[in-house]
């Protein structure tokens, strides 16, 4: 995080999980297991392997372009998590890093996602052209709250 370029933002989610790192590693790296908690993918645990995460529902589809950047079995996994939507405002270029640390009760699992979405620039610029998108997103957020 210390070397994050200006404008980059980071999400960190971490949790103590009562299962050993080796078991969690399987869930993070075996496609039939990945699909059960994240998305369909053609992931392979090989640095440089390019793959997709795919989510499809009746009215909604998302495809992420990814590449494995680093692997340390049962300890660390890093891949890119890029979304190239038709709308430039929805494009996201990011890197997801999973870190597994054994603890007395199981594993401390940490997910860090660092990246940049183009609409952040617009948000701070206050571009008037971007306003309708704000409202659209706001409505989506509010719909979930109700």
């Amino acid at each position, binding site marked *: 995080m210390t070397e994050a370029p200006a404008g980059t933002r980071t*999400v960190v*989610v971490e*949790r103590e999980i009562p299962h050993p790192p080796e078991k969690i590693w399987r869930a993070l790296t075996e496609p039939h297991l990945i699909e059960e*908690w994240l998305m369909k993918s053609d992931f392979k645990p090989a640095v440089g392997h390019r793959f997709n995460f795919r989510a499809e529902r009746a009215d909604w589809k998302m495809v992420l372009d990814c590449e494995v950047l680093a692997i340390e079995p049962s300890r660390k996994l890093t891949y890119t998590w890029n979304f190239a939507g038709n709308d430039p405002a929805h494009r996201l270029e990011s890197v997801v890093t999973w870190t597994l640390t054994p603890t007395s009760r199981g594993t401390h699992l940490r997910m860090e996602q660092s990246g940049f979405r183009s609409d952040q620039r617009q948000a701070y610029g206050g571009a008037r052209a971007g306003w309708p998108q*704000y409202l659209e*997103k706001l409505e989506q957020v509010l719909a979930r709250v109700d």
Partner: protein
Amino acid sequence: MPNVHDALFRTLADPTRRAIFERLCRKGEQTVAVLTAQAGVSQPAVSKHLGVLKRAGLVRDRHEGRQTHYSAQLGALTPLIDWTSQMAGFWQKRFDDLEDLLNRMDQ
């Protein structure tokens, strides 16, 4: 950040208030009179809604003669549209599903 979200959600949860805010976003600065003509509620009610929006930082007022002009402050929405907030929610749910899966998996 959750407190900021709560305040924004509470402020925008009211449909009339949200409609006023959206109109200001689309049309730019408007007077209370113009907003009242389109809101379908009384001027005191519109003024009250504008007061709530102002306290949440969502609108700014400007006095000119006897008229008060209101404009939307889009910067106040930044916490809601920040992709990191959206992704944090996404990953929390994924962690839940991952734990469910781990509980079902054989060692």
